[in-house]
């Protein structure tokens, strides 16, 4: 649970980028599919809760980066998300930004390991 909570803390800042990146790989996805995809790819290290995911999806939609289409599946409405053109650009930008950030964080973390040894 603690592990999960800390991962959530980091996830919160990168969630937008994760979602945009996933959507850039697939033509369209729905909420549960995204959570499953994240869980499968990270081997359960990162688990997206619906409580965190949906607000972000709606926010991105509101910003015009995503468009939605509702399809009725098995007696319930399923909302599919796909990227718009500005959404594609945003996905690229945010992904490169995040990679740069991760590199920076790695640099920050690495020296301590070096000095401690």
């Amino acid at each position, binding site marked *: 649970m603690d592990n999960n909570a800390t991962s959530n803390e980091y996830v919160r800042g990168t969630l937008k980028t994760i979602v945009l990146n996933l959507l850039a790989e697939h033509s369209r996805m*729905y*909420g*549960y599919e995204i*959570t499953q995809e994240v869980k499968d790819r990270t081997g359960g290290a990162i688990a997206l809760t*619906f*409580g*965190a995911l*949906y*607000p*972000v999806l*709606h*926010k991105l939609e*509101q910003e015009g980066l995503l468009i939605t289409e*509702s399809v009725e*599946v*098995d*007696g*319930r*409405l*399923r*909302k599919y998300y796909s990227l718009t053109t500005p959404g594609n650009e945003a996905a690229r930008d945010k992904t490169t930004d995040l990679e740069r950030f991760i590199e920076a964080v790695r640099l920050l973390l690495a020296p301590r390991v070096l000095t401690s040894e």
Partner: protein
Amino acid sequence: MKRLQENRIDLINNYLQASKLDPELIPEILDHLACEAEECLWNGKPFEQVYKEITETADAQLLLNLSVDHKNLLAMEKSLNDIVFEGRNKLYGAYDLRKSYGQTIQRSVLMGVTLFLLMVMLPNLYARLVPEPKASDIAYVVEAHPVDIKMEVPLPPPPAEKAAPSVKTVRSLPPVVLPDNQVEIENIPPTKEELESALPGQEDIKGIEDMGFIVPPSAPVANDKAVAVEVKPKNDEIFRIVEQAPEYRGGIAAMSAFLQKNLKYPSPAAAAGIQGRVFVEFTVGTDGKIENVTAIKGIGFGCDEEAVRVVKLMQNWIPGKQSGAPVRVRFTLPIAFQLN
């Protein structure tokens, strides 16, 4: 893949409805939870257990947090109106009015400013479109030709008119009555010999003696010393009785002789033995001529006509006079026809 029966979906749906979840989010969360449940069922868990797990994970507090997070994330875009109309009937109209208020104001300000500018600029625009003619503009072109100015040649003086030939006149002033001491002896009337070859005039002019036409003497110089009293004959009036009756020149005897000589007894009257007097009326003019001869009372048988004929022959009566002036007088003369 196992599918959830509808009643089970409804069960989850009802659970979500009962919670304080934002209605906007319900369909998505429902789908998400249903998918989770289906996977659990796929893994061989009984639905009751699955449902219990779901409600434990997605407990009321979590769903509420989700709603709040969702709201907060989107709140940046939310206006005051959305907050004011939270949970109220937005279809009523006031919400739309408030929402479009900004746009309306913007549009109306733009229109107002445009209209105002148009009104203010209209005279200016009109003046630009219809430019007034400037003083420097050329209205029309006048072609200038050189003008030759010639010195004015004075006209030759008209040939002097030759004095009209004047008629030879002899000084012959009308005689003026003056006291003896003032009489000027030089104003002697012209002699007969002088007048034979000249006309009487104011002065002696040596002109052509026989011009063949008669020139009226030049108007006499106004003479205030004496004004000749001219008695003008009164021609208009015909008198019956006058102070001096007209008279046959020569007297009654001469008239009798004239009548005796000219009267001839008309044969019809002689044959019929007619005798008597014919009264002939006539006017004696101022010159003594006989006019308007009529027989006013006769005896017939040609005697009246004979009497009128003879009277018309008479000439040279002395006209009758009234106040010294000759006047026309109506005169009645009885002529007797008598058989011998």
